[in-house]
């Protein structure tokens, strides 16, 4: 038992603590009767943003594929979950039960679409996959907009199921409990052997396949799981917000979630939580401050976050600077690294140039008739290149 105790690392529980601090802050305020509506509403938004950011991080940070349709999955959850909740609300008295059922339904519906999108994802990667998810998001939006029972262009009015922030079951409590559940699932997934399989696929798919990892299964699983989470977030959104309007779930919203992931750090769950809370808060705080065309400053900052952070973390030339500035080097002497420690911190997902050579060798399958022969029209340029004559 004593030996086991030594395995306990506070580091693994930081994410729960982060969320618990926010949650307890709100709870204590509420018990003192001093929780303003703006704060409880802020926490609901933070909660579903965290779910979105963490689940997108699973796809982008851990699996290493870019999904630009996360808002699309949320859209499915929000529309369908709210629709079901509205239908149920006249039959079931307990609002909480209605919310839980609709969360499950909305999540499952989104997961189904995750499966549908995930299937092509198995054949595509990189830019193509990103474009397919983007296209999916647009398709979902167009379809939801045109379905008459979803309210068409007016949106689905959710006044009937909307949570009154003064009533007993404040939505933020349910939302935060959902965050805990999602975090628990994701943390355990990531730290399990399945999580290591997922990161192995990200780092080198061919090597992972060679090690006997079922790449197909894991890719699909991550897609479906992330979609499920986004769907659940969508249902919370639907109970918080009226009307559920297709225009909310545009490409821009997917990018906003992506900004949270990039700001928090790829494959860093703690980072995603902090970034989601920060960006949600800053958005609301800036809303009153930046009006007129100045509001574009916010998007300018998002853009700069994306560009600067990604370049800083990935540019091969900046690697030494980054290494020098990393916390490990700055505070490294404070703690000893144990052998076998596997770090999953931000930045390390960028591949190392030497790997590419290995991959290319592995991927070139030489069979009769399949040797590397430049195409006919390609032959000329190779011979007559600028430095040949």
């Amino acid at each position, binding site marked *: 038992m004593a030996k*086991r*105790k030594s*395995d*306990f690392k506070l580091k693994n*529980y930081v994410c*729960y603590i982060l969320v*618990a601090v926010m*949650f307890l802050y709100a*709870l204590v305020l*509420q*018990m003192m*009767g001093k929780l*303003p*509506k*703006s704060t409880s*509403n*802020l926490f609901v*938004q933070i909660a579903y943003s965290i779910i979105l950011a963490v689940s997108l991080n699973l796809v982008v940070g851990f699996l290493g594929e870019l999904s630009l349709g996360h808002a699309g999955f949320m859209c499915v959850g929000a529309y369908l979950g709210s629709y079901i909740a509205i239908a149920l609300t006249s039959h079931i008295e307990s609002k909480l039960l209605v919310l839980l059922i609709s969360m499950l339904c909305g999540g499952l519906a989104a997961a189904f679409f995750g499966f549908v999108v995930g299937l092509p994802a198995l054949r595509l990667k990189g830019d193509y996959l990103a474009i397919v998810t983007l296209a999916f998001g647009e398709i979902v939006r*167009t379809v939801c*907009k*045109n379905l008459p029972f979803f309210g*068409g*262009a*007016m*949106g689905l*009015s959710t*006044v009937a199921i*909307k949570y*009154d*922030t*003064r*009533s*007993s*079951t*404040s939505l933020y*409590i349910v939302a*935060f*409990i959902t965050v*805990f559940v999602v975090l*628990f699932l994701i943390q*355990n997934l990531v730290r399990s052997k399945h999580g290591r399989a997922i990161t192995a696929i990200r780092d080198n798919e061919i090597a992972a396949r060679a090690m006997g990892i079922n790449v197909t299964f894991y890719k699909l699983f991550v897609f479906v799981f992330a979609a499920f989470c986004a769907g659940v977030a969508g249902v919370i*959104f639907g109970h*918080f*917000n*009226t*009307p559920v*309007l*297709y*225009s*909310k779930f545009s490409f821009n919203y997917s990018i906003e979630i992506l900004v949270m992931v990039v700001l928090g750090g790829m494959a860093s769950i703690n980072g995603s939580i902090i970034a989601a809370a920060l960006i949600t808060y800053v958005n*609301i705080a800036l*809303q*009153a401050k*930046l*009006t*007129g*065309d*100045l*509001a*574009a400053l916010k998007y300018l900052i998002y853009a700069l976050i994306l560009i600067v952070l990604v370049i800083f973390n990935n540019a091969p030339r900046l690697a030494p600077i980054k290494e020098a500035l990393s916390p490990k080097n700055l505070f490294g002497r404070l703690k000893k690294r144990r052998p076998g420690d596997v770090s999953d911190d931000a930045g390390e997902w960028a591949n190392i140039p030497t790997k590419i050579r290995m991959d290319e060798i592995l991927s070139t399958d030489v069979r009769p008739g399949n040797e590397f022969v430049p195409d006919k029209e390609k032959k000329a340029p190779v011979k007559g290149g600028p430095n040949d004559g």
Partner: protein
Amino acid sequence: MKKITKLLAVVLCFALIAAFAACAGKTNNESTAPDASDGASTPDATVNIGDFDFTKTGEFTAENTKFVLGATGPLTGDASSYGISVQKGATLAVEEINAKGGVNGKEIEFVMLDDEADATKAGNAYDQLFEQGMQISLGSVTSGSCEQFASRTAEDGVFAITPSASAANVIAASDTMFRICFGDPDQGVLAAEELTKNYSNIGAIYDNSDPYSSGIYDAFKAKMAELGTEYTEQTFDKENNKDFSTQVEALKDCDVIFMPIYYTQAGLIAKACQAKGVNAVLYGCDGFDGIKGQLEGADVSNKIMYITPFDAAAEDEKTKAFVDAFGGKYDGEIPDQFAADAYDAVYVLATAMEQIGVDNVTVAPDAIGEALVATLTSSSFQYTGVTGGMTWDSTGACTKVPVVVELN
């Protein structure tokens, strides 16, 4: 390791559930108090001022030194021109009222926050306004935002009268949500009647991604079916279709095209008509206000008509005074119907507040809200402003007479 994780999870869950239950019990008791006081008011023919208690102070209004009038609207983003117009119109009205000594001797403070025409942001803006002591409100400018705003006013009993959110869902979401603009359906019905009477070959084009446009069109469609009039229908989606050649081609034989859309797209369609040599009359709704600016320099020959509550070129004294004052304040700008409706909305609020005689600037929002609802829905209340004479029913809908403006 695994056991610890599991144990921790279980403990955490229990802690949460306990907290949740404790909290639920607590707030339950608390919330009964305000609930009891804000019963739905029933419209009455005679409003007795003595029925209302204006001494009650709201949670956030204790430090008010003026009546706080709140509103949200798109001050940024695609729809910002509407929000900015409302802001200008309402600011002008508030300044005029304060210059004349305010309402019952007390001034009004107007606060408008940006919501980017996004419902979530309208909700956040509502929270901020409410906590800044908002007592009366102009709601939101766009329909989606205003539905969110209305659902919040229903919680707090804040009275709101929107200058421009015309969708039917908006006033349905709250008992204290009123509007001063036409409802979407009203314009559709009116257009269907007018067009059936005056034209034989009718076409219609609307934006199926826009609540305003779809709302008017749905009513138009229903009325046309009722009247038994045949017409050609076309749609577009403002995000994806900016090239209207196909739609205009399909409508090229029409004498008149009904276009319940905003002026930016209307300008593009007018230009597409010109390119295709289509000479139909373009018949729009109040969203057409502003189309002149879109057509400057383009030789569009189509006759353009639109339904609007407000004609800046009208000769009556109220309109002239308003247009002059507006131009004087904003560098000669000519007000559109958004500004006019906002201007009227502020005056309606001021008039009603004078009638109920409220002079306590720290009055609780639900107390003044209840009184305002009773006043506006009473059969004796009516107001004539720059957008004509108007009365309200218990749903919060406004009845007023539209004018049809012609451009050549």
